[in-house]
């Protein structure tokens, strides 16, 4: 795949109650956003173990998005606060180990924010285009 036609691949882990429903709203509202994202629905952003994020990153996904309810809105009261700590720890460990933490993005998007979901995917896709392909994708030693 040459640079000029590079299309980032994003894996997204979305919580059932807010961001996944927001993505659904983006679709039913006929909002346009880049087709670069593969969505995996979980019950809560607090159910995202870091290994779920690391596995695609180490296999060569260009970006990983974690979407959850806004602070205070978690269906399970505090799952998103736990997710926030885990992603903060993940970003530090990526920085400390020579991996690009900009390929991981945590965003709070509610069920009513279909437009924000579409905008989030647009911006992440653009930013990843700037970053270029994940160098790990062609690194057999990873």
């Amino acid at each position: 795949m040459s640079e000029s036609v590079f299309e980032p691949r994003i894996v997204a882990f979305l919580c059932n109650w807010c961001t996944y429903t927001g993505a659904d709203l983006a679709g039913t509202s006929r909002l346009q956003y880049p087709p670069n994202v593969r969505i995996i629905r979980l019950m809560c952003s607090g159910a995202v173990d870091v290994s779920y994020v690391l596995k695609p990153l180490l296999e060569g996904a260009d970006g990983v998005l974690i979407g959850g309810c806004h602070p205070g809105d978690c269906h399970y009261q505090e799952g998103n606060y736990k997710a926030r700590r885990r992603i903060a720890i993940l970003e530090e460990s990526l920085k400390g180990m020579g991996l690009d933490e900009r390929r991981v993005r945590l965003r709070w998007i509610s069920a009513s924010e279909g437009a924000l979901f579409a905008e989030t995917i647009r911006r992440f896709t653009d930013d990843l285009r700037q970053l270029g392909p994940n160098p790990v994708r062609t690194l057999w030693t990873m």
Partner: protein
Amino acid sequence: MHWIIERPDGDVRGALVGVLRAVLAGGMVEALLVPLRHPAGDALAPALVKDPALLDLADPLAPVLPLNGARLVSMLTQRPPRPRIAAVLRNCEIRALVELVKLQQASLEGLVLIGVECTGTYEVQDYARIARGEPRAAFALRPACQMCEYPAPAVSEAIPGLEMVIQQIGLYGSAALHVETSAAWASRLGLAAIDDAGPHDEALRQLLVERSAARDRMLAEVRARTASPAGLAAFFSTCIRCHNCMTNCPICYCKTCFFKTDVFDHDPLQFVAWATRKGASRLPADTLLFHLTRMNHMSTSCVGCGLCTSACPAGISVGSAFRAVALRTQALFDYVPGRSLDEAPPVKTFEVNELGELGEG
């Protein structure tokens, strides 16, 4: 407060054995966990001692750490009914124990902790050669010990049950056993008070300066080696994913660690798919995923004992990489593992308002 037992013959270990015997024979505890000189002659083995006579073999000052004793205390206290025991531990063991208690894997209930200051330990194989008569100068301390900034436990309310600390730093060659403890324990054990701590406090300050400098130097080297994905892969190039680092880690307590489950028994054709995409696929698979995931799961509680490095059959400086990351993840929450029983481990709690704008677009 500082106390001593004069020992004109210079047999400091003998004085310490006397203290341990007084603790055990005094009926305060029913058994005592302490490293004993193994009859093999060149090894120390942690043992739960019931017979005070066997304490003649006790040698908690010997510079070797076969495993982190926090795991043993966890084994001995994880569920009631709990024995009343005393445990003689180094600071990395005490700090790991504090973390395990907070993670509900051990209990300090009825436990008497006797801390030992540590001037560093050697790899088990190196210690065996030292015990057989080779000069210490021919061997280097374990890397984790070279950069350890927490060599000295301190008696404080932050760690209930830590009743006394055997001091060693700056006291090499002293003809007395130096102990930090309360007046109550000192009178129980027949210790004499001293006003002047001697060279100890200054030597400790000096040691911390040296160790911190060594830490910065060694971790800068790790950072340089792991500055890129290819560098990271090179750092762990010899990993055979044997899990020894995890098995020997005092913090990794999960009995059902998912790296030991069939999640990683991939379909055989999956390996071919991976090899097809990258041209080749390093086997065993998921080695970096294993290390990075473990860093995320446990580094906030990592005490830097370095037993992961000592356990690695492939010579990887696992512990240095983990410390490099742990310094960052612990700093996020201003958390020092083992500092206090009252501070919740970062992965067990959260604040409603924290971490700046993380999550906001």
